[in-house]
């Protein structure tokens, strides 16, 4: 049993090891070993094997590689590109034109993909060439793509939601249901941001988009179907009782194959590329996750949870005060960290405190995923920003950073809304799960 002071020193050691550039898994492992050997017993260091097997043999987590595979197949099939073109046909009418397409295409792609980075890469690749010839402020273009990509984890399915569910024993189905409304509201807020920017700086979005003939536009509408079908399969199979969450991911993977074939992209080589990408991303996530579970195990035995709980109760924090403090904490952390380290590094410590304060775990899952998404677009460490810059191959990363500012503010507004109206996240799970 250790106190809050020792826990704080431990957290400091973890952060120091991370900043020294050790692998995230190593840093967490060393912290755990240190705690176990000082305060507990060598037998608990030896139980690493048992605990690794226990945490990795998990059917719910299997949905992580399945969703990654699904995203890879869809991206490589070219269906995203076609989706973008078709959406542009219709959204061009709005003030801000093609910028809205960036958001909408990302939102729809998010609905079939669990990864923000894949969303950013795809939309940037499709969209950026077309913006070269148009009169939009470039920063706003880049910002809108980054913002759209950050919907990837929030709109279900999302890997961050699965990881949170697995770490806290929260139903992933309920988390999905909870994230739907915030995901839609976030999309609307992004679009409103574009319109607002248009009003404030009319010369930033001067472009009037030409419209193709209606017949052409209608014909292209069919390209919206594949992602929608996949989304319908995932959500439909879960909420109709045909399949569990993991099974639905498997179903969607298999359904994506004929789509790739239809677009003439299905081949063994293409599948192997998909497998390699899936293996890499899965290994990266699972090594961190498995060691995080081990760290969690040691922290539990050290009694960090009750110590923190007592500390928080001791300082008399209200649930609202706690959430506001956590918001600031995560915004700061998000500057340096990516989604996964941020999630697995903090959930074991924060979640028990949340439970002790009587905060709804499903709501908190949506909250923390929103925080993770903010971290993706808060410079200087933000994967999506660099992906966009890599696609762009010109200008400076600073322009990308600038472009995200209005959308970053929109996400802060979103956070405030989620805190002020928690029903946004709790209403749908209650409706579907009684």
């Amino acid at each position, binding site marked *: *049993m250790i106190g809050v002071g020792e826990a704080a020193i431990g957290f400091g050691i973890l952060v120091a090891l991370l900043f020294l550039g050790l692998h995230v898994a190593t840093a967490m492992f060393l912290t755990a070993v240190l705690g176990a050997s000082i305060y*507990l*017993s060598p*037998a*608990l260091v*030896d*139980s690493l094997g*048992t*605990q690794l097997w*226990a*945490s990795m043999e998990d*059917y*719910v987590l299997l949905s992580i590689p399945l969703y990654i595979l699904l995203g890879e197949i869809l991206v490589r099939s070219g269906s995203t590109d076609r989706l973008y073109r078709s959406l542009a046909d219709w959204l061009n009418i709005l003030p801000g034109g093609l910028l809205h397409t960036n958001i909408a295409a990302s939102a729809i792609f998010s609905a079939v993909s669990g990864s923000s980075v894949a969303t950013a890469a795809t939309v940037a690749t499709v969209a950026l060439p077309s913006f070269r010839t148009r009169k939009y402020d470039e920063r706003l273009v880049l910002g809108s793509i980054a913002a759209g990509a950050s919907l990837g984890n929030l709109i279900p399915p999302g890997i961050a939601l699965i990881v949170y569910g697995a770490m806290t*024993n929260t*139903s992933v*189905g309920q988390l999905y249901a909870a994230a739907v409304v915030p995901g839609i509201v976030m999309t609307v807020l992004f679009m409103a941001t574009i319109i607002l920017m248009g009003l404030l700086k009319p010369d930033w979005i001067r472009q009037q988009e030409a419209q193709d003939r209606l017949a052409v536009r209608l014909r292209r509408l069919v390209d919206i179907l594949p992602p929608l079908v996949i989304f319908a399969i995932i959500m439909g199979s879960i*909420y*109709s*009782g*045909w*399949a*569990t969450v993991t099974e639905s991911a498997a179903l969607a993977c298999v359904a994506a194959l004929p789509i790739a074939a239809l677009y003439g992209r299905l081949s063994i080589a293409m599948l192997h590329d998909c497998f390699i990408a899936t293996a890499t991303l899965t290994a990266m996530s699972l090594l961190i996750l498995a060691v995080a*579970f*081990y760290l*969690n*195990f040691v922290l*539990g*035995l050290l*009694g960090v*949870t009750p110590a923190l709980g007592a500390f928080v109760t001791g300082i008399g924090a209200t649930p609202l005060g706690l959430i506001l403090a956590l918001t600031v904490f995560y915004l700061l952390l998000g500057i340096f960290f990516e989604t996964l380290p941020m999630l697995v590094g903090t959930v074991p410590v924060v979640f028990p405190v949340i439970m002790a304060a009587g905060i709804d775990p499903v709501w908190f899952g949506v909250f923390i995923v929103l925080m993770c998404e903010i971290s993706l677009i808060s410079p200087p460490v933000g994967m999506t920003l660099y992906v966009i810059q890599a696609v762009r191959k010109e200008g400076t990363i600073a322009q990308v950073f600038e472009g995200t500012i209005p959308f970053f503010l929109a996400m802060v507004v979103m956070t405030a809304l989620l805190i002020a109206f928690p029903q946004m996240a709790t209403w749908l799970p209650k409706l579907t*799960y*009684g």
Partner: protein
Amino acid sequence: QQIPLRAVGHFSQNTKQIEIERAFYGRLPQATGMNLAVSFNPMDQIGVQAADALRHLRSGAFDVMAVLVGQVARDEPFFDGLDLIGVSTNVEDLQKAVEAGREAFDKRLQERFNARVMALWPFGPQYFFCNSPVRSVADLRGLKVRSYTPSMTALVQHFGAIPVTLQFSEVYPSLQRGLVTCGITSAVSAYAGNWGEVTTHVLPLSVAGGIQGHFMSNAAWRRFTPEQQAKLTAAFRELETELWTFARVSDAQSLACLAGKPDCTERKFTNTVSAVPPEDDARVREAVSSVVLPTFRDSCNRVWADCAAVWNRTVGAARGYTIP
């Protein structure tokens, strides 16, 4: 000087059992007159898998563990024999079976895992909870039933039902959306998990008692003097009695609340709790002899040649069964 005692408790969702355990460890230093420094954590809160309990005791990672006997049968199939599906269909019979098997159980535990039995107790009778009118095992024919052990699958199949494997957390949504028709669990778990919202009929035929245990590693045991050991034994016996009583009481209460009876003081549901027809007893007996016992014998004798013979002498004799 303080004697450390690292204890792992039950699943935290089983709030009542956790409460009992926590209180027990809280008063243990006083009850035994020892300066014990007990650290107590529910197993799911530290990410310990129920099936690994015997390994954690053997390695010395933990001193005392709450053990789900059905789960650790992975490493020792004989342990499943205490509470084989269908063998004891009510709490009294189960208690007889446990008493008859306790010594052989403990011996095997000491030999193979270097740990000892401190307490053996039931989680509560396991019934069929269905979202269609099931009033007898005969009604199970053609229905999808969630099963999670080999002998449960054998029994369910024998009654013509379709066994489906699901994680426990998936059972509620699956019952709700008709992915399965019935789940088998204790009334306490069903009530705590709000299954009453998604089921309509309960068939209170107990196919198992959900036997649990509290085991201590011999390494920890040897830290104590014989007098201290005697005091520990007595304290755990008391815990055992308390948990048996609790299983009886909570079972009755949960059933009453699932049925929405007036004597329920907490949340009420409107499930139909049928009376088990007398013919079902014979049907279960027949199923046990023809499928459950052979399934058990095959998996158990593979690891331990004497398994079936020892079972026949102990649990079998107490319950009137003989594995051929």
